[in-house]
C-alpha cells in the first residue's frame, strides 16, 4: 500500500519544529506502525538524510517507550493499543497520516517525536514505592490477600508509564498515571503504612512537575493503551481526602528531620 506521512521534525528543545511530508510506497499491511517508521528511516538514510528520532524498545506493548500522536490520538486510532502494536492494516491504502510527539508542558520535546517523560520517575521517587530494603521477609502466605483485591491492584499496576493519558488530556493532567500507582500500592496490605503520605507526596510532586489538573474529560481512559480505569482517580481522590482530614501532613519530612 501507499501512504503519505506528515511527521513532526524538530532538531532540539529550543529549535522551532515543523511538519514534513514523506511518501512511502510498498508498505505491507502486516507491518507494525513502527516497522513502517523503520522503513521511512531506511529510505531517508539511503537518501543521505537523518532518520526521524523516536523512542521504542520492546515492540510488544509493554515497555511504554513508543510515544506518538497519530492522527490526533495518542498511540493512534485503535483502542487499548500501543503504537508498536498498531498495524498498517488498520489504515487504508493511500491514507494520509499525521505523526506528532506527545505534547505537554511537563514532557519537553527532545527531538522529533521523542519527549522527556522523566517527570513520571520523579513522581514515583516522591513515594510510589513501599519502603523496603532487601533481606529476609515474612512468609507471604501469612498475609492472605483477597484475589479480587490482588486482581484490581494488578489492573492498576498494569500501567506502562507511557504518558498517553497526559498527551490525551486537554489539561495535560497526569492523574490517571498517578492514580494507578497510588491505587496499586494503597490496596495491598503491604502498602498501608505509607498509604496516606504516599497519596499526598505523589500528588504534590505531580503538581510541582507542571501537569494540569483533572477536569473529568476522561480522554485519558479513552486513549490509555492498557485500559486503566478512571475509577482509580476516584479512589485516589478519596484517599487524598482522608489523608488531609485525618493523617498528619508531612510525616515523611519530619522523619527526615529527626
Amino acid at each position, binding site marked *: 500500500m501507499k501512504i503519505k506521512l506528515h511527521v513532526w521534525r524538530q532538531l532540539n528543545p529550543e529549535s522551532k519544529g515543523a511538519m514534513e511530508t514523506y511518501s512511502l510506497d510498498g508498505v505491507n499491511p502486516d507491518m507494525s506502525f513502527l516497522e513502517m517508521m523503520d522503513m521511512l528511516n531506511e529510505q531517508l*538514510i539511503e537518501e543521505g538524510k537523518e532518520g526521524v528520532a523516536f523512542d521504542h524498545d520492546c515492540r510488544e506493548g509493554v515497555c511504554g517507550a513508543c510515544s506518538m500522536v497519530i492522527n490526533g490520538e495518542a498511540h493512534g486510532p485503535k483502542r487499548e493499543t500501543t503504537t508498536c502494536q498498531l498495524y498498517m492494516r488498520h489504515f487504508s491504502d493511500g491514507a494520509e497520516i499525521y505523526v506528532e510527539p506527545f505534547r505537554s508542558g511537563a514532557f519537553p520535546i527532545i527531538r522529533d517525536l521523542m519527549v522527556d517523560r522523566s517527570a513520571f*520517575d520523579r513522581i514515583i521517587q516522591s513515594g510510589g514505592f*513501599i519502603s523496603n530494603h532487601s533481606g529476609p521477609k515474612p512468609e507471604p502466605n501469612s498475609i492472605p490477600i483477597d484475589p479480587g483485591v490482588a486482581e484490581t491492584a*494488578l489492573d492498576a499496576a498494569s500501567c506502562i508509564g507511557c504518558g498517553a493519558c497526559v498527551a490525551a488530556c486537554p489539561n495535560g493532567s497526569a492523574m490517571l498515571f498517578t492514580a494507578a500507582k497510588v491505587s496499586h500500592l494503597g490496596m495491598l496490605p503491604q502498602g498501608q503504612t505509607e498509604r496516606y503520605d504516599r497519596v499526598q507526596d505523589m500528588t504534590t510532586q505531580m503538581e510541582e512537575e507542571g501537569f494540569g489538573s483533572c477536569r473529568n474529560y476522561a480522554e485519558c481512559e479513552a486513549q490509555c493503551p492498557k485500559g486503566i480505569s478512571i475509577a482509580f482517580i476516584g479512589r485516589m481522590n478519596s484517599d487524598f481526602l482522608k489523608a488531609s482530614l485525618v493523617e498528619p501532613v508531612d510525616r515523611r519530612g519530619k522523619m527526615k528531620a529527626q
Partner: protein
Amino acid sequence: MLTLDAKLPQGPIEDAWTNHKDQLRLVGPKNRSKYKVLVIGSGLSGASAAASIGAMGYQVECFCFQDSPRRAHSIAAQGGINASKNYRNDGDSTWRLFVDTQKGGDFRAREENVYRLAELSTAIIDQAVSQGVPFAREYGGKLANRSFGGVLVERTFYCRGETGQQLLLGAYQALEEQIAAKTVNMQTRTEVLDYVIIDGKVRGVISRDLVTGEIKRHVADAVVLATGGYGNVYYLSTNAKNCNVSALMRAYRRGAGFANPCFTQIHPTSIPASGDYQSKLTLMSESLRNDGRIWVPRNKDEKRKPSDIPEADRYYYLEERYPRYGNLVPRDVAARNAKDVCDQGLGVGPTGYGVYLDFAAAIEQKGVDAVKSKYANLFEMYERITDDDPTKTPMRIFPAVHYTMGGLWVDYNLMTTIPGMFAVGEANFADHGANRLGASSLMQCLADGYFIIPVTIGNYLSGLEKDNLTTDDEHFAKVEAEVRDHANKMLSIKGKRSTNSIHRELGKIMWEHCGIQRTEASLKEGLKKIPELREEFWNNASILGVNESMNQSMEHAGRVADFLDFGELMCRDALLRDESCGCHLREEHQTPEGEAKRNDEDFAYTAVFEYKGEGEEPELNKEPLNFEALPLMTRNYKS
C-alpha cells in the same frame, strides 16, 4: 591464559552458600559511603542490585540507555518466576529445583551456583510480595502457581502474563526510593562504551549521553554489568529491539573472559515470522503449553481449515514422542521437534514454518471464559498481531531466538576475570548451563541482584586500599580517546548501506549456520561469511551525523559492529564444542531418536574465550565442571 579460579565453597552443598557468606569480609556501615559502585543496566538484575547496594549505604551510579529504568527489557517477561515453595504440596523442594535446573541445563553449569539459585528462590518471592508485587492469588488469598516446561511440579508464580513487568516495577520502585534518598545517582539515556582498567582492576567507565552526544568519564571502585542478553545477534528474536552485546564485548576486549557464547535458547512458542520487514518476533508465553496442545496435520498436502481436520489426521507429535512430559517438554526439545515436523513438510501457515497450538480441548473442558481469563493478555496480543482469535482457531507458533545462556565468565562471587568487574543476570553465564528452563531467568536476575552481589561486592571492596583516583588520570584520557576514535572511524565510512540491512544479513547467517541445529560444515561456512560481511560494514555502511549530538544512526552502528565480531566468536565456540548438549545440537551427535548426545568425557567444561587483540584468534580456556552432589546422568524426557 586466564586464571579461572571459581572460588567454589567446600563442604556439603546444602550449607555452601551460608558458610561462604559467613566467611566473606564486610565493609562497616560507616565506611560504605566511601566506595563508589557503578551498575550498568537497570533491568531486573541491575535495578535490584543498584537498589540493594544503594540501600546498604554505598555510593551507586546506575546507567541505562532507555529514558527510564522501568523500560528495561525485563519488563517484557511474561510467564512467571520459579520458587521451590512447595505450596502445591507436590513434593517440591530446594533439592528438586536444583536437580531440575541442573538436568535442564544438560550438566553444563556449576552445581554450586545452581544449588544456591534454588536455595534463594523462595526468598525472592518473599521480597517481591513485600514490595507489593500483585502475584496471582487463590480464593483463600494464598499465592497461586502453575507449571512450566521441563518439570513435574507447579512452582511458577505469576502475574497474569506480565510477571516481568510487575517484578521490574517492584525493583524499579526500590531503585527510585534510593534515587530519592540520593544513594543512587541514575543516568538514563546513557550508553556505557568502555572501561578503564588500572593496575589490572576496573576503575571506571566512559559513557556517551545519547541526547547530547557528550562523552563522560566516571571513576569507580567496582563495576557491575547488568546489561542483559545478546539474542539480537540473530536480528530477529523475542528480545527488545535495543538489546545488544556491546557492553559485554567491550569488557571482553579489555580482558574479561567470555563463557559459552554459543549457548542460545530457541523458544518454541513465538508467533512465526511473516515477512522481510519484520523487526522482531513476539513470544507467546510458554505457560500456554499448560492448556494448549501442539499438533500439525499428518498429511503433507492438508488443505482443510484446522477445525475441519479430524483427530485421526492430526499429529500431536510431542504427546506421541514424549508421553510423560507431552506438551511440557523443555524448550530445546519442543523447538527442535517443531522444526523437524516442518522440515518434513508438515508445517502450517504461509511459510510452512509454523505449528498449531490448540486450545479447543481445554475450552471444551473448562469453558472459554476460564481459559481466556488465564491467558487474557496473551490471547489479545496474538489476535492483535495476527488478526486471528485463538479461542476460535488454533494459534500458529514457531521457535524463535529467545535467551542467551552464555555471558561473561564469573566466579562464585559473580566477579569476572577483571578484578572489580562483576556481571549479574543474563549478562553472566553462571546458572543455566546449556539450556534454561522457563521462569528461571527472572529468578536468577533477582537472586543475583537482591541477595548475592550486595554481599560479595563488600568482600571485594573491603580488600581495596582507598586512593584519590580522579577522572583526570591519564588512563581515563587514553580510553576516552579510543572511544572517540572508534566513533570517528564509523562516521568516516560514508558508504551506502544502512547498518540495519547489514544487521539483518548477519542475522540470517547466524540463524542458518549457528541456529537451532549446527554442523561442522555450517559453522565453518558461517566463519567465512561473517568476516566478509564485516568488511562490507567497514567499507560500505552509511552512518550519518556527528558524534556531538543525538545520533541514533551511530548508536545502532556501534552495536552492529560488536554483533559482527561477536557472531564470529559464537560460531567459533559452537564449532569447538564438538558434542550436543541442551540447546546446542550438533547434528553429528544425536541419539538414534534425534536427541542431543553429550560427550562428558571431553566436554564437561565451561568454554571461556580470551581476547588476544584485533584480528587475532581468541584463546580457549577451560573451567572443568565437577558433579559431586548430583552425578552426571542422561537428560531424558521420554520416560
